[in-house]
C-alpha cells in the first residue's frame, strides 16, 4: 500500500534532517564549558540530585493478580496502638512526680525506667518500620528488629545495675542538674 511505503521514507527524511542540522548545537558546546556539566540535556538546568532514587522495578506475578491483604493481627494492630498510648500517658505523671515530690523510691524509679524502655522500644520500632522497608532492605530490617528487641534486655540490665549500685535515674539526674550550683554539696 502507498501509506506503508510512505511512512519509512518520511521517517528517514526526518532523521536525516536532524542529523545534518542539529537544532541545539550552540547550547551543547556551552554545556561542555559550563560548570553545570551535570545537565542531562539542554532543557534541564538543575543538577541531578536523586534522593531515594527508584529501584529496579519488577512485576510480581501478573497484572491481573489481586492486591494481597495481610492477615489481621490485633497484637500488631489496635492492641499495639492502645498499649502505645497507655504507656505514653503513664509516663507523664511518672516523670513529674519524683522530681516534684522530691522523694526517693527505688521501686517507683525502677518502674519509671521500665516504662521508658518500653516507650523507647515502641518508638524505635516505628522508626525502623518507616526507614527500613522489607521490600527494599529485608536483611537490615530483620537485623535491626532483633537488635531493638535484644537492646531491651541489655539496657534493662544496665539500668538495673545503675539502680542497684548508684542512686537511680531521678536522683542521678537531679544531682547532675544541680551539680554546678552545689559544688561543695556533691555527695560521693
Amino acid at each position: 500500500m502507498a501509506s506503508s511505503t510512505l511512512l519509512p521514507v518520511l521517517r528517514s527524511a526526518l532523521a536525516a534532517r536532524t542529523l545534518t542540522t542539529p537544532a541545539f548545537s550552540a547550547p551543547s558546546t556551552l554545556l561542555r564549558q559550563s560548570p553545570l556539566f551535570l545537565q542531562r540535556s539542554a532543557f534541564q538546568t538543575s543538577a541531578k540530585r536523586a534522593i531515594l532514587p527508584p529501584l529496579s522495578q519488577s512485576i510480581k506475578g501478573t497484572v491481573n493478580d489481586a492486591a494481597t491483604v495481610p492477615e489481621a493481627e490485633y497484637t500488631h494492630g489496635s492492641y499495639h496502638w492502645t498499649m502505645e498510648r497507655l504507656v505514653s500517658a503513664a509516663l507523664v505523671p511518672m516523670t513529674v512526680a519524683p522530681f516534684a515530690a522530691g522523694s526517693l523510691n527505688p521501686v517507683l524509679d525502677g518502674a519509671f525506667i521500665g516504662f521508658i524502655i518500653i516507650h523507647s522500644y515502641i518508638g524505635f520500632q516505628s522508626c525502623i518500620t518507616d526507614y527500613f522497608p522489607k521490600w527494599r532492605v529485608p536483611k537490615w530490617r530483620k537485623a535491626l528488629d532483633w537488635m531493638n528487641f535484644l537492646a531491651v534486655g541489655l539496657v534493662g540490665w544496665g539500668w538495673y545495675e545503675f539502680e542497684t549500685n548508684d542512686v537511680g535515674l531521678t536522683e542521678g539526674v537531679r544531682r547532675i542538674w544541680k551539680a554546678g550550683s552545689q559544688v561543695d554539696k556533691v555527695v560521693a
Partner: protein
Amino acid sequence: MLSQRIAQQTLRRLALQNPAARFVAPAALASRNALVNQRRLAATTSSMQENQPNTEILAKQRLARPVSPHLSIYRPQITWYGSIINRITGSLMSGTFYLFGAAYLAAPVFGWHLETATIAAAFASWPVILQFLTKVVFGWQFTYHTFNGVRHLMWDTASGITNKAVNQTGWFVMGLSTVSAVALALL
C-alpha cells in the same frame, strides 16, 4: 390467554437465570441483542509477565528516569517539622538512655567511671555558660517531646484535628517547651 401465560412463564424463567432480564423490555429479550451471556472460547494471556523479555527494556529505562524533588522542595510547615522534631528528640533521648545503660555495663571492662558522683563533678567543672546551654539543649529535647506527646494524645481523643488547631497547638508547644526548658535550666 395460554400464549400470554406461556410468555409470562418464559420471562420469569429468564429472569431467574439472569436477574437483569427483569429490567429489559420483553420485546428486546426476544431479539439476540439484549443480555447476551458471553462465552469466551479462547483464554486471554497477559503480555506483562516478569520473565518475558519485552519488559526488561522498560524496567531498565525506569531506572534512568529522573526523580521529582520531594524532600528538598516541600515547604516547611509546623505540621511536618513538628512531627520530625518530635521523632528526633525522642530518638536522641532514647539513644542516650540506651547508650548509657549499655556503657554502664561495659564500664568495668574499659575502666570508665560512669557513677553519678564522677559525672556530676565533671559537669560542675565546666564553664557556667556551657553548663547552662547544655541544660537548655537537653531540657528542650525533654520538654518538647513531652508537650508534643501530650498534643498527640489530645489528637487521639479526636480533638484539635482541624488545620487551624494543629497550627496553633504546634506553635504553642514550641513556645511552651522553649520557655520551660530555659526555666528548668535556671533551676
